[in-house]
């Protein structure tokens, strides 16, 4: 039998029961690899359930630094009886199967192309520990110890991690370290040299391992958000939970009061209503939600757009339609967000692709929302938000000042020559000056409304006035195109006629595909989109290439639809690679599809529309 033999390049998949305490053990494993200086991408594949259903944790180890998901399991750590057979069958030929050998495997486990790594987890655990709760939790730690031996992972990294985790409760560290040793020693004695996968230390860089939602929360904290209205929904909940945690630490006053108001609302309508009310009144406010919440917020999006009130919304996308697969990932809210609400309304979208960008773009979202007096939606997703990612460290430029936009305070109003109008386009950029309630006894008062209004915010049903207002909003949209973060463009070859276009969590897998193509001698240009509306750079990039392949994680090619609608590009120039099964897209998937698009099929050969590069 050929055993898979690889250093720093494999996938370990843990199969656990939800709620059995496996998460911290699995995280410990991933963090240990990270601390060994090897790039690691853990993915939770969990059920919409609190306890009892199967859950998986996939760890891709990549010495070359690839951060996208890779399909296929080289080593399964199977400790869930419910899925044991399935986990066994899914191991790649030549791979490894670690299981609890307290009980023998049934007869149908009869593959001869994989290596079994039996560790009597239950027996070891029960012999060493008597507390039933500890027995359950530490079983997970034992297999991590075993993995350290099997993968040649430096054992001290694990013990150090445990010690630092329990600095405040050193008593708890002891049994954990004992459990690690039990697994480590058993594997060393019983399976020496059987596993040919190994971890080799690499020099560590400055990157951190952090989930996107924590970074998003920090972005909001640093940007000065003081009001948050929200309603619990996976996978966005941990944004607010993290915000609350950090606010508890950084926004506490000496008297114990807090410089923040976080309200769990009755639903997402109220959550956005709270944001709009607070922003109208001059505070920085935000909410975090997912698809179903976006649907509910629709009416308020239109109000904020039309009455021109800043609003920051974090959409941590999950699989739709409807309740869909609440614990799987997708990029399928683009159209719902871009055009949320009835009538002609449209909103800015920002697309982070790693935790650092969750931080940066969330902070930018507040500046943009106040500068442009309109909603800005940060389009994260479950993969980015809830999994830990290797990310450049977060950074805040201390000289940076919040851009609070065009707000006239009392002294500005006193100095103002002539008559102020809330919706007067004084500067010609479509952005008008607003005032805040309570600021001046005589000046700057206006009536905010979602009904059609004139430049002085008075109600109007005069068609030309209504139309001029809508055109002015369109002018503001043009201004927005110049203010949004520019795309990241990579053009290794000026003459190349093929461009890949992608965004968000598709980026890692797309880049991996690009490097594989390059290794095979095929050079492509690429653009990673960071915002909607599309800036001139995006349009130029598209126009410079004969063929653009838009890669996204939804069924309906939503980004392609947006590009067609907003840039005037013709449909034949944009092709799609679409991935929408709910698991993060992989480089294999993208490479195969690109290959297929590049090789002219017999059908396409005579078809001018299918002109290939």
């Amino acid at each position: 039998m050929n055993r898979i033999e690889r250093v720093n390049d494999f996938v370990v998949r843990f199969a656990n029961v939800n709620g059995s305490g496996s998460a911290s053990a699995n995280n410990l494993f991933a963090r240990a690899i990270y601390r060994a200086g090897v790039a690691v991408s853990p993915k939770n594949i969990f059920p919409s359930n609190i306890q009892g259903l199967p859950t998986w944790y996939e760890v891709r180890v990549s010495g070359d630094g690839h951060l996208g998901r890779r399909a296929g399991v080289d080593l399964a750590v199977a400790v869930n009886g419910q899925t044991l057979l399935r986990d066994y069958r899914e191991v790649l030929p030549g791979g490894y199967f670690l299981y609890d050998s307290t009980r023998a495997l049934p007869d149908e486990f009869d593959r001869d192309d994989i290596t079994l790594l039996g560790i009597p987890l239950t027996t070891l655990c029960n012999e060493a520990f008597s507390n039933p709760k500890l027995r359950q939790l530490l079983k997970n730690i034992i297999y991590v110890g075993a993995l350290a031996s099997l993968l040649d992972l430096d054992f001290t990294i694990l013990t150090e991690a445990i010690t630092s985790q329990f600095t405040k409760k050193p008593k708890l560290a002891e049994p954990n370290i004992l459990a690690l040793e039990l697994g480590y020693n058993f594997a060393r004695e019983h399976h020496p040299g059987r596993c040919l996968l190994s971890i080799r230390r690499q020099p560590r860089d400055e990157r951190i391992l952090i989930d996107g939602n924590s970074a998003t929360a920090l972005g909001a904290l640093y940007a000065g958000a003081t009001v948050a209205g929200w309603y619990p929904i996976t996978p966005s909940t941990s944004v607010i939970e993290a915000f609350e945690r950090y606010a508890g630490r950084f926004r506490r006053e000496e008297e114990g009061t807090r410089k923040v108001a976080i309200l769990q609302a009755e639903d997402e309508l109220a959550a956005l209503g709270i944001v709009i009310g607070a922003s109208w009144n001059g505070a920085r406010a935000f909410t975090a939600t997912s698809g179903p919440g976006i649907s509910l917020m629709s009416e308020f999006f239109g109000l904020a757009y039309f009455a021109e009130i800043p609003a920051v919304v974090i959409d941590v996308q999950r699989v739709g339609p409807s309740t869909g697969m609440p614990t799987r990932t997708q990029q399928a809210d683009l159209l719902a967000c871009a055009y949320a609400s009835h009538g002609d309304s449209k909103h800015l979208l920002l697309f982070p692709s790693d935790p650092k960008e969750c931080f940066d773009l969330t902070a930018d979202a507040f500046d943009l929302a106040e500068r442009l007096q309109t909603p800005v939606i940060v389009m994260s997703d479950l993969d980015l938000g809830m999994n830990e990612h290797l990310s450049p460290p977060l950074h805040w430029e201390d000289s940076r000042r919040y851009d609070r936009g065009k707000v006239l305070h009392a002294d500005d109003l006193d100095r103002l020559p002539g008559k102020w109008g809330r919706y007067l386009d004084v500067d010609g950029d479509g952005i008008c000056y607003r005032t805040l309630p309570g600021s001046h006894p005589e000046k700057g008062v206006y009536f905010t409304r979602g009904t059609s209004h004139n430049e002085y915010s008075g109600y109007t049903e005069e068609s030309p006035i209504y139309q001029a207002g809508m055109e002015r909003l369109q002018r503001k949209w043009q201004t927005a195109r110049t203010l949004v973060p520019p795309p990241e463009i990579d053009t290794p070859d000026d003459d190349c006629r093929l461009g890949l276009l992608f965004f968000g969590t598709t980026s890692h897998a797309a880049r991996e595909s690009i490097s594989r193509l390059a290794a095979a001698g095929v050079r492509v240009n690429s653009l990673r989109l960071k915002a909607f509306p599309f800036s001139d750079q995006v349009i130029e990039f598209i126009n410079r290439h004969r063929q653009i392949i838009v890669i996204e994680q939804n069924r309906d090619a939503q980004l392609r639809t947006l590009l067609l609608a907003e840039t005037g590009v013709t449909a034949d120039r944009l092709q799609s690679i679409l991935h929408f099964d709910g698991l993060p897209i992989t480089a294999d998937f993208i490479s195969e599809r690109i290959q297929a698009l590049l090789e002219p099929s017999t059908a396409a050969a005579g078809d001018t529309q299918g002109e290939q590069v």
Partner: protein
Amino acid sequence: MSDRKPEFRHPKLTSNAGGYSRRDYEGAMSTLCAGCGHDSTTAAIIQACFELSVPPHRVAKISGIGCSSKTPAYFLGKSHGFNSVHGRMPSVATGANMANRDLLYIGISGDGDTASIGMGQFGHALRRNLNLNYICMNNGCYGLTKGQDSATADLGSIGKRGAPNLYNSIDLCELAIELGASYVARGFSGDKAQLVPLFKGAFAHNGLAFIDVISPCVTFNNTNTSTKSYHYVREHSEATNTFDFVPLQQEILTHYQEGSSQEITMHDGSMILLHKGEPGRDVTNRLQAVTRLEAEKERGRLLTGLLYVNPASRDTHDIINSCQRPLNSLVDADLCPGNAALQELNATFR
């Protein structure tokens, strides 16, 4: 606001303690039907603000959608106003209040806006005890969409549309008491003498003050078969008490005290003196308040006046322990922890 009333100052125009004239509390010309109850309610709001010398620019008016929700354009023209979306005034008011706890918030809603589409938000603003004066102009119908029965229309009541209402009505005051409002009153747009002190008490109150104002719709629900008509309400209302509102600065005159059966000291030190209450009645007792409402309903009477008050109430800011400074006044230096702290945070992710 092109329909501003002509700006002229009557020489005899008196000003209040704050130096404001009544004109300072007025708004644009109303576009509601002549005789609409909402306009009288608006007039009572103006009167209450005038008497309390509220600085107009320190008020924020927020409403939903409906004829009633249009009224913020018709009072306090020197205050910022926000006519939001149908049924969602409470959440917008919540956000606004969170941003700046120092303004006086007047929330205007209708019975459709509150008891149907906005029922959820209504309930939760009550539960959080938001420092908001929630005024529901209750006409038992949807005025702006031409008179359909609302959820506060009484069983069997017949409006302009001619068909008896098939369902039981929702008593917003009872609900408000049960869901946590800390000041609950019912008034009638036709009884300004009662309404003005109810508003003044509400404005002085810390927490959610809910005032259900029966405010007849002359166009669609003022028939002689409607229980929300001027005539019916006059005939069937039962004042639970009358009261005087005594602002903090004002000396309490003895003749007030003589007839009063209960004195309530409000959050800001002002007082409510209740008269004519039955002996043993305690307006700070929730259970009594609900029982009384039910008992009068059984007798076919509509109870008005101050129904319940908890003068020691803690509002949302008190509950969540937010800082005294308005959140919207905090600047970068108050809010941003800086890069050094961020670098320490980075270390926790290594």
